[in-house]
């Protein structure tokens, strides 16, 4: 018998086996990789209730009967000895009065009350963030990841509550002098510094505020600052050369630099922290955090993680007097790609992912055990024109561009609907927000305005940076403008080149510039300060030589000094109106921030700037 057929059979068998294995493995891989996410029925979670006997004041209608006895004089006529005689006698008359009265009666009642949720102590909260912090010194750190991470260890003198009202933090209260130049801050007692284990004093706060002048990047948030000095152990006086109305808000604003409090370290204390005076002079707190906050840094590796443990000597307690924080620690995992962050939270590698793209929301919502939180943020997309050159030096031409852009479509196509259309340079949640729908989408009107100016066609460049969603926004804007014969070539550059070109005024060579900035809660820090900054100058000072003529300069100065809330609101409204009417820039959208969070994470509060989290009062279910 020949062996050839056997060989052939074995080979065939091998091929068949391999083929089957490939089909099975490929099929499984394709199935798992492409199967639609399991849709989990979302049920409304009922709040757990328990019954409780409570004494309550209940309004009860009572019939009150009272017998009123009163003396009544009556005239009695009688005959005494045949002579009629009249005399007055006093008798007691009894009268019964009945009336219905509503009285409050204390009664016992069985009521249903929400079961008290007991926070659980322990566990590590893992968060996928955008990037590693560049620097742990809160007065130097310029970037979002640094500020966010710094907040776990450092604290402010004041904070915002959810309605953006000022609430105490390290300072209990304040007083302002009559001339509005001096603020007296009264500090909380018994607050301990991490690592060095000594109490926070006025010396530390004065040092911290004066240090903002040492670092220019903090200084711009404290204009006309004179000095801060300790009056006694718990009182600090802060003096300005000119009134600076937003001072307290800047102290609380998470995006403002220089407002977190750092200690004034002696040489001995520097040793405890692991620094020499020389190191500290060179690098400050760049690699060593010493704050009063709820968490202390334990380990970090740029690009991989930052780990924090709880500060067991933290000063704050919850409303029931329980020690904060609840969590044992935090871990930040930097991941620049939004889609990968979404997968990390789905895989359970992290408990929360920041900055989820709107397009990834359905898959997160369909994943069991995850929820999404969404909120309009502070990321503001707008475009500006070169005012120095014709034809945009003519306001009608800028209006034409504004009319040519369909903002709803920009939001839908460039941001997958994740945000809101901007009708002002402030987001709608800002208490001073006013919508100015002056230039709604109307391409015919745009063409008519261009005709009035005598322009039939424009060619040029649409300039912006490569960070999402700027390029997609530019593509949609390019198409809308092409409809009215404004034909622009898109030019995108990386962020470093973009900022450098703004700084060097090179943007003047571009017809239209796409710009994004991160807004702040307070109007002066948000709009006023930006008017003369590169971010703002792109659309104001640099491009518009008539900025003062528009009245914006005066408004900015007013916002810096005016303390009266009503007048500030009016100034902010005027600023928004002029901005829109003069087409300083064309507001396009405010992007929504989305978080994907494991449902086990409880009591998390987010704020629009995505820097400030209530780390101390978050807890994690087992």
């Amino acid at each position, binding site marked *: 018998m020949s062996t050839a057929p056997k060989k052939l059979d074995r080979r065939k068998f091998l091929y068949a086996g391999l083929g089957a294995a490939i089909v099975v493995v490929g099929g499984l891989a394709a199935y798992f990789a492409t199967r639609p996410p399991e849709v989990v029925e979302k049920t409304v979670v009922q709040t757990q209730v328990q019954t409780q006997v409570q004494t309550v004041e209940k309004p009860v209608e009572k019939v009150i009967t009272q017998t009123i006895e009163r003396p009544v004089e009556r005239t009695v006529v009688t005959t005494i000895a045949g002579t009629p005689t009249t005399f007055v006698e006093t008798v007691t008359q009894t009268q019964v009065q009945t009336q219905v009265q509503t009285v409050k009666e204390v009664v016992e009642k069985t009521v249903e009350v929400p079961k008290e949720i007991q926070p659980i102590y322990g566990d590590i909260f893992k968060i996928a963030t955008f990037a590693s912090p560049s620097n742990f010194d809160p007065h130097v750190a310029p970037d979002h990841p640094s500020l966010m991470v710094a907040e776990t260890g450092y604290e402010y003198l004041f904070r915002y509550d959810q309605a953006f009202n000022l609430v105490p933090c390290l300072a209990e209260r304040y007083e302002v002098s009559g001339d509005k130049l001096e603020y007296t801050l009264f500090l909380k007692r018994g607050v301990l510094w991490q690592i060095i284990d000594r109490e926070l004093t006025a010396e530390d706060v004065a040092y911290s505020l004066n240090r903002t002048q040492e*670092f220019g990047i903090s200084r711009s948030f404290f204009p006309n600052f004179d000095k801060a000095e300790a009056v006694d152990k718990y009182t600090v006086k802060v003096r300005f050369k000119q009134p600076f109305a937003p001072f307290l808000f800047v102290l609380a604003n998470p995006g403002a630099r220089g407002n977190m409090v750092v200690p004034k370290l002696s040489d001995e204390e520097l040793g405890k922290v692991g620094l020499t005076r020389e190191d500290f002079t060179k690098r400050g707190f760049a690699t060593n955090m010493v704050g009063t906050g709820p968490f202390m840094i334990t380990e970090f590796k*740029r690009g991989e993680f930052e780990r924090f443990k709880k500060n067991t000597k933290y000063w704050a307690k919850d409303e029931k007097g329980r020690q904060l924080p609840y969590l044992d620690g935090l871990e930040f995992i930097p991941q620049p790609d939004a889609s*990968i962050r979404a997968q990390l939270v789905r895989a359970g590698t992290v408990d929360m992912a920041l900055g989820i793209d709107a397009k990834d929301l359905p898959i997160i919502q369909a994943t069991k055990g995850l929820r999404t939180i969404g909120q309009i943020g502070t990321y503001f997309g707008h475009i500006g024109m070169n005012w120095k050159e014709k034809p945009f030096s003519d306001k009608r031409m800028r209006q034409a561009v504004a009319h040519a852009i369909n903002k709803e479509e920009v939001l839908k196509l460039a941001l997958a609907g994740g945000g809101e259309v901007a009708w002002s340079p402030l987001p709608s949640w800002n208490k001073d927000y006013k919508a100015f729908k002056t230039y709604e989408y109307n391409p015919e009107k745009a063409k008519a305005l261009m005709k009035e100016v005598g322009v039939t066609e424009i060619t040029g460049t649409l300039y912006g940076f490569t960070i999402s969603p700027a390029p997609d926004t530019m593509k949609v804007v390019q198409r809308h403008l092409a409809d009215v014969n404004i034909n622009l070539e898109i030019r995108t550059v990386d962020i470093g080149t973009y900022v450098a070109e703004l700084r060097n005024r090179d943007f003047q060579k571009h017809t239209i510039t796409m710009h994004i900035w991160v807004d702040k809660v307070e109007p002066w820090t948000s709009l006023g300060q930006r008017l003369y900054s*590169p971010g703002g100058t792109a659309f104001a000072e640099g491009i518009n030589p008539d900025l003062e003529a528009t009245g914006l300069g005066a408004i900015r100065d007013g916002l810096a000094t005016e303390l009266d809330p009503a007048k500030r609101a009016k100034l902010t409204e005027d600023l928004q109106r002029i901005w829109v009417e003069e087409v300083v820039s064309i507001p396009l959208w405010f992007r929504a921030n989305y978080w994907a969070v494991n449902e086990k994470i409880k009591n998390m509060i987010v704020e629009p700037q995505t820097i400030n989290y209530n780390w101390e009062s978050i807890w994690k279910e087992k």
Partner: protein
Amino acid sequence: MVSKYRFIYTRLATVLPTAFISLTIIFFLLEIVPGDTADVLLGPGANQQDIEFLRKMLGLDLPPHERYLDFLVNVVKGDFGISLATSRSVNKLIMEALPVTLTLAVSSMLIALLIGIPSGIISAIKRNTRTDLFVSFGALVGISVPGFWLGMLMLLFFAVYLKVLPGAGFVNPFLDPIEGIKHLIMPSLMLGLILAGFISRITRSSLIEVMLQDYILTARAKGLPERIIIYKHALKNALIPVVTVVGFQFGALLGGAVIAETIFTMSGIGKLIYSGIIDRDFPVVEGVAITMVLTFILINLVVDLVYMYLDPRVRLG
């Protein structure tokens, strides 16, 4: 003929001028690129005053030649300076990133070699058969598949659906072998499978060429078993181009695994130099670049020495 040791000394002597030329070119290239660390860190909404102050604080207001000379002096002292973006020692940043990259590169290369060489040999031996077709197709897929796509697919499959492997981070396998290997599987597979395709193709073509040589015919005529002919006589010679490719690819892995490092959140050399370029952090870029230049020179040296071992006829000069 040059002795082995002299060859090594000569090669090592090229390190200094190569490093000097590289860092000079890189420094001035970074100077030409618009923007600096202050621009990047403060971002597009920054205040003009803030940018100016940060530039001064970071020493970016000094003329380029002064900064360059300062940097050169520090490099001579073995200090790459302080990162402008992070205020941390560049030496320390490199020392933190290097073990991650080395571990990843070695494990990826092991996977690539374990798959690439045997599959290349099988493909060459079974030339023009269905086995060859199948292996060649696999290799082609390996070469063609985009790394980021393969990485994302693996992340979805192993971390999200099966939940058997961690989706992020690096654990040193020498400190915690189980966790270390679990963290390495996906990134190593991602890089290794792609490389395996290259190695398989090179091994196949090289072995086919060698198998057609006269000395192989002689060996066959002598009645040597095919196994001996392939593994003892042909493979050693066929591996010379493979070693060249492996050397280059290993060097590239040390500097360019940025996609795998990004997808799997590992802070290796690739990510360090990438963030350095984006942040215009020239001490970091220079420090990493010099490290990579030295690594490449060393790898090339090793490759040349391996040539000598594989084929004693190869003489260095």
